[in-house]
């Protein structure tokens, strides 16, 4: 038994017939082929699956695709616009914010959300924001530095969350 699920992902509407039990992370990766969002612990503990659902980060292994029907999803693929990296991405490049890269998309989606709400977070606020996410390479120092870099180099935020 399937149901029609229509989701606007990164500005494009996709409709697929899927089982109601399908998790949002699998919908994004396998139905849509957007594999930037990762699937790690499967138990809502690591945050490598974090995407935005209706403008708020969510662990996509812990919600159903059906719950996103008619809603808006944003994934890491949308951070880059017109060949321009988001300041968060630039920060991860500048500060060596990733090693294997497995946690990176989730970390960046949470960081973007944090900076949209609080453009100048201090180290404690950054650590708090990513406290539900695990970097298996343990590169937390550089992740925090990367987010601070993005805060200090906001560039020209062409696509603040409100306009998505």
């Amino acid at each position: 038994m399937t149901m029609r699920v229509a989701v606007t992902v990164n500005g494009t509407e996709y409709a697929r017939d899927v089982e109601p039990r399908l998790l949002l992370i699998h919908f994004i990766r396998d139905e849509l082929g957007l594999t930037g969002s990762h699937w790690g612990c499967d138990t809502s503990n690591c945050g490598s699956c974090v995407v935005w659902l209706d403008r708020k980060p969510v662990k996509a292994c812990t919600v159903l695709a059906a719950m996103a029907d008619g809603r808006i999803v944003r994934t890491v693929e949308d951070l880059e616009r017109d060949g321009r990296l988001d300041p968060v991405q630039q920060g991860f490049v500048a500060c060596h914010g990733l090693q294997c890269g497995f946690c990176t998309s989730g970390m960046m989606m949470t960081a973007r959300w944090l900076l949209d709400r609080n453009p100048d977070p201090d180290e404690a606020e950054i650590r708090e924001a990513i406290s539900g996410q695990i970097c298996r390479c343990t590169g937390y120092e550089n992740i925090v530095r990367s987010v601070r870099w993005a805060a200090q180099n906001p560039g020209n935020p062409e696509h603040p969350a409100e306009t998505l």
Partner: protein
Amino acid sequence: MLYMQVPAHVEYERATSVDHALALLSRPDTRVLAGGHSLIPMMKLRLAQPEMLVDINGLAELSSIKLDAGQLRIGALARHADLLDSALAGRHFPIFHDAERVVADPIVRLWGTVGGSLCQADPSEDLSAAFAATHATAVIRGQDGDREVPIREFHLGPYQTVIAQGELLAEVRVPVAGPAKGGSGSAYEKVARRVGDWSVAAAGAVLRLDGKPGGNTVIAQAGIGLTAVGAEHFVAAEAEEYLRGRAPDDESFAAAGRIAAEHCHPVADQRGPEDYKRHLVAELTARALRRAAGRAALAAGRAGRKK
């Protein structure tokens, strides 16, 4: 594609109104789907296997937090983050802000709901203890209307509540008592093994203090909630009883902590042995009471007591 953990087959309906949700819930084997942050993990593990899910996420009428007729009314669909962000809730009951700061992590708190926490009835749920301490009331809605159940009678045991088939939790009401002569205050103290984890043990306290002719204050009413330690209905009733009429000082609080530790029923597990958990209950109960009393003193416009 092979997945590690997926729920079993299930039907899905999105409720468009509370009445619609209630009609759908009258079918056997249906479950409310709120944030899904407890239910979906349970379904992955086959600890829950409903035939149909009724998604209530669209029901904005269930998500407000407001003050009305002397009660703080918290909609069942209010997210943990909403309660944490609510200045109104924080002003009247700092215990909720203390507790919400240590429930899960900031991302989970954006989706998990107050109602889902209470209905999940996990023996380690933080809000169950916080609401027990505040003497809250659950408002349960069915097709025949609302019924009110004191939160201290809401949980029947692990993963079991008084909510029947065809009903849902609509809101939680917390009585905001009029200004107490000696002030009132509340606090929550939790110990977890790591940030964002479930409690090894936690205690919440609500104090109402009364002035005495001599200028001393006494405890008019104490509410103490405990979680993760097998306290009946998440309450430390004997410790509450002990405190009534006593001075709000360290000695009373330490004794109340000892009584709470004696009367709960922790079990040894991967989070620690029984005696350690009892030790935590004694210490966290005393700390929560101390902080609640400090806030009460501030609320009464007095100089804070010395720590």
